[in-house]
């Protein structure tokens, strides 16, 4: 077509457009068909029939935050391994040994996090 990069933008753009148009069309049809009636009780959040006392966006367990941080670390490692996996046949034994050392260091950090109790959920 034009050039590989523009082609990819067109191709992904087309699929994005199909998905977005489908979703928006469903919502548009729903807005045409669905009734609307205002009632202050409808706007209340579901709380098993009890009126909510406070805002729901309370501080939450710090564990979720720790998991997020660990995820960022390990996902970066994974992304780091993708180019290595593709280059392994050309970089040979040296690249393999280096990556095994890297994985070893990664595992040390992983077991540290484990022993610190980051992975324990109560």
């Amino acid at each position: 077509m034009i050039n590989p990069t523009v082609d990819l933008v067109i191709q992904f753009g087309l699929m994005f457009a199909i998905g977005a148009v489908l979703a928006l069309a469903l919502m548009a049809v729903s807005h045409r068909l669905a009734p609307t009636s205002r009632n202050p009780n409808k706007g209340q959040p579901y709380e098993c029939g009890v009126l909510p006392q406070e805002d729901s966006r309370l501080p939450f367990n710090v564990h979720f935050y720790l998991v997020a941080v660990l995820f960022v670390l390990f996902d970066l490692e994974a992304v780091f391994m993708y180019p290595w996996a593709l280059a392994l046949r050309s970089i040979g034994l040296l690249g393999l040994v280096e990556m095994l050392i890297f994985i070893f260091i990664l595992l040390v950090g992983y077991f540290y996090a484990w022993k610190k109790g980051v992975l324990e959920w109560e």
Partner: protein
Amino acid sequence: MTDFIFLLIKGVLWVAVGVGMVPFLIYFERKWAGFFQSRVGPTYAGPWGSLQSFGDMAKLLSKEDVVPERADKAVFKLAPYILFVPGFLVMALIPFGPLNVDIFGHKVDLVIANFDAGAIMFMALGSIAVYGIVFAGWASNNHWSLLGGLRCGANMVSYEIAMGLALVGIFLMADSVNFSQIVDGQAGNFWNWYFIPQIVAFVIFFISSIAELNRDPFNVAEAEQELVAGHMTEYSGMRWGLFMFGEYVNMVVMSAVIATLFFGGWRAPFTALDFIPGFIWLIGKVLFFIFLYMWIRWTLPRYRYNQLMDIGWKIFLPLAIANLAVTAVIVSVVQR
């Protein structure tokens, strides 16, 4: 211009088949659920209840769309779309036939986007769906939703690492992250498919994909008995329908990705069967994995949240790293 017309035809056909399947998948899921639980499932709408999903859709379309008073309205409305759309982009990456096929004198690639970094794009798009769920949980301003959204976010994020590391084994064997080249690497009879040498990666990837898709036994986000409906508690009408629809679309897409990475994509199990078009094999494999998802969903009880995180972090992560190291050593030794 003809290229663009072919692209349009490919895109519309692929979406028509992949998404057109969804109402029937929902019907079959309900029928299977009935079968597993000694019930009959839907029977009233159409012959054997086969139009049940369309009836449900008409119902959802005519339901009021309630947005809670204290919700963050913009984010609340955006969240279903964020879950829904990335699946379509992943669809663009799945090859359903060889490249450079001669159709009416035109060279056509039977894949929508022959992207060199396809598998990385797949991982990236998989992460975007997490935003949809976390946004939905946060924007609803409801205790159940927030807790469901957070749990689900942490769960998807944990399994994504195991998934990403399991994929490295495939990349090492195929020497590529392009889906078409990964399928080419599995040419020949079914014993050349990657699920045999990479059986560990396959098991990790498959179980993690159940967690990614938020299905039982890993659907802690909408654990009905604990959290009402998790991040979807405050959603109603078609906005809720988009979440449900998006989950099924993602299931079709994830099955197609598994078929492509581990089961030879559009290739026939025996080269003698190559006369049947690749598209049919791909759809057959997709249906097989969808059946597997449904079977698992209605057979196993839900895991407790800490067990779920333990499986992801303490079993799958080390296992995926071990698999990756062993594969790397073997690949290095074999080529020498």
